[in-house]
């Protein structure tokens, strides 16, 4: 848009320069007009008309103007149409040239803070589809083994599996093998017959469903705004017998540890050989067999207890509310990314007590973390002394979909120690801000990169960047494709002397 305005300004300047040296002449029939103006076939300049009026008189000049063909000024009529036609032709050529890509996208190339991830991308302008492709080699690993001495040994590296191994080792030795087998894939003798195919299909479907078609893009190029891009996901994963079996075109090795059914927790992570200097194909993702179904640990829920008959929280619940408030800072002033809200369901003997208890929770949220009251919603929980807090939508996350976010170049947004402290910047904060989504931070929320499943607009920032790269065009932004109207023939206003424009003036006023 800026470039077009500058070109129009240059055109106006050029016209004025031609008109200035108007010659002084005595009489008509043929009024002398600068040769360049005649040659151009354009309208007489204001300065020329004034000069002629002063020398030949208003009436003569008016008659001459009536004989002049009505030619609309280029800047107001013919140029917009020509520009429109040229842009549309260019757009059609772009579309008819077919799909753009596929091309590999390395998040580190556009984000200096990134050191992981990678995917392929292809844009089909005819379908308006941006296809994001993630390819992986899945290595099935036991989560636990039995030592020659008959003791369970944790292999999956989480605290939960360490605790499970200790629990198995309290069983009589003859009973241990059957329990350890539950941490073994069926291909190695485990009891869950379809576990490997379930994992492969669950991995694919949880990522595709979790990430596809969340936020459309559209082209911002002048007269191209009806060109759109909906993001489609395609995840292709296949089993390999060893880490070395990963193909060169696969973005990640997925080490998948078998855990028993019902397992909660586990270590899930992503890393890339070479870090920021690595390629899009050097990633390693570690997950468990339970990471392709929604989490069961209710990360977005908190249970509250009130003192019987009173409006006050129990001491334990005060701590729960303060910790929650600390992990959910308000959005920084000027941020475009909203902080998650809370729904507080409160029980009590009557409406008044429920409201009092809600106010008590609100007070603790303010004291514990300065939470803005507008983020907190009351819900009537009926009679009793309990309560419940839900962060955002409360919908459970599927870990594989979260880890896929790292493959798409996004950092964690949940809270923890050090760099994960609530309110601190993430490794995609600056990249998202450059795309207009400011204020991404570590915070407890329902977002996919925090504790929930919601893919927010700023989580599409690398897809937008990939679209720009694969289309070789920078003019893309968030939002659906827009309607493009051709410019009207002679502008928006009736032109005197044209059909429907009324009678042409007899004189030119100066």
């Amino acid at each position, binding site marked *: 848009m800026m470039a077009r305005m500058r070109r129009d300004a240059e055109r106006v300047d050029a016209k004025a320069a031609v008109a200035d040296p108007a010659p002084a002449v005595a009489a008509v029939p043929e009024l002398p007009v600068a040769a360049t103006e005649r040659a151009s076939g354009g309208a007489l300049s204001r300065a020329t008309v004034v000069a002629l009026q002063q020398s030949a008189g208003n009436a003569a000049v008016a008659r001459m103007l009536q004989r002049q063909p009505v030619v609309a000024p280029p800047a107001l009529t013919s140029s917009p149409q020509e520009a429109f036609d040229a842009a549309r032709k260019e757009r059609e050529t772009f579309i008819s040239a077919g799909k753009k890509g596929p091309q590999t996208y390395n998040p580190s190339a556009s984000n200096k803070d990134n*050191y*992981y991830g990678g995917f392929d991308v292809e844009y089909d302008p005819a379908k308006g589809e941006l296809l994001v492709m993630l390819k992986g080699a899945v290595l099935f690993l036991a989560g636990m083994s039995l*030592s020659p*001495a*008959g*003791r369970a*040994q944790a*292999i*999956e*590296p*989480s*605290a*939960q599996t*360490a*605790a*499970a191994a*200790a*629990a*198995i*080792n*309290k*069983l*009589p*030795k003859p009973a*241990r093998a059957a*329990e350890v087998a*539950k941490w073994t894939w069926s291909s190695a003798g485990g009891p869950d017959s379809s576990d490997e195919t379930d994992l492969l299909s669950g991995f694919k479907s949880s990522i595709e469903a979790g990430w596809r078609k969340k936020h459309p893009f559209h082209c911002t190029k002048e007269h191209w705004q009806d060109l759109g891009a909906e993001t489609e996901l395609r995840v292709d994963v296949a089993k390999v017998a060893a880490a070395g079996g990963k193909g060169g075109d696969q973005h990640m090795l997925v080490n998948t540890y078998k855990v*028993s*059914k*019902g*397992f*909660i*927790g*586990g*270590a*899930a*992570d*992503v*890393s*890339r*050989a*070479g*870090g920021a200097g*690595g390629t899009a194909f050097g990633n*390693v993702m*570690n997950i468990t067999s339970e990471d392709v179904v929604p989490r069961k*640990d209710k990360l977005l829920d908190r249970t509250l207890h009130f003192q019987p008959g009173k409006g006050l929280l129990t001491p334990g619940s005060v701590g729960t509310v303060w910790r929650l408030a600390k992990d959910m800072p308000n959005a920084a002033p000027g941020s475009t990314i909203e902080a998650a809200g809370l729904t507080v369901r409160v029980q009590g003997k009557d409406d008044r007590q429920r409201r009092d208890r809600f106010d008590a929770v609100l007070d603790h949220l303010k004291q514990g973390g300065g939470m803005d009251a507008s983020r907190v919603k009351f819900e009537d929980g009926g009679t009793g002394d309990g309560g419940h807090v839900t962060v955002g939508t409360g919908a459970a996350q599927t870990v594989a979909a979260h880890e896929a976010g*790292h493959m798409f170049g996004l*950092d*964690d947004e949940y809270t*923890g120690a050090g760099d994960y402290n609530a309110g601190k910047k993430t490794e995609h904060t600056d990249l998202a801000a450059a795309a207009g989504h400011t204020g991404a931070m570590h915070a407890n929320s329902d977002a996919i990169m925090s504790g929930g499943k919601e893919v927010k607009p700023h989580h599409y920032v690398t897809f937008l960047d990939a679209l720009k790269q694969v289309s070789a065009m920078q003019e893309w932004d968030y939002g659906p494709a827009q309607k493009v109207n051709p410019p009207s023939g002679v502008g928006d206003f009736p032109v005197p002397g044209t059909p429907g424009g009324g009678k042409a003036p007899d004189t030119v006023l100066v």
Partner: protein
Amino acid sequence: MSDAPEPLLLERRVETGDDAYVDRITTDGTVWTGGNVTATLEDGDWNFDRSEPSWTRQATLQSGPLAALRRSIADSGFFSTPAEHHPDTPVIHASREVWTAELDGRRHTSTLHARGTTSAEPLSTLAAALESALAAIDTG
């Protein structure tokens, strides 16, 4: 975790986010487990949960295994191993293993980041020594 049993001989703390599972042995040979994660088996079904951090006394090492553990700690090179062991490349959201030992008035802590990806020989030696000690109290 507060109120950790003392005096300490050896501790391994496995941490995943805010979750922790801890094996701890005091100088008198008492074996403790602690942390805030629970894994229980009931009629063949697993139940995983979180709880308030606490310590549970498991058993006491006999003098022989206790002496063997002290020798292994002394010979492991643990007291000269770096306080931090990082993976070659950063691993986003990995578990870690925090080892602490105290012997002859020296106390040292070393953290293995990205557990399962990273390794350090003195810590692997300690892990084998801890497993031998736990096997010595295995009554199964």
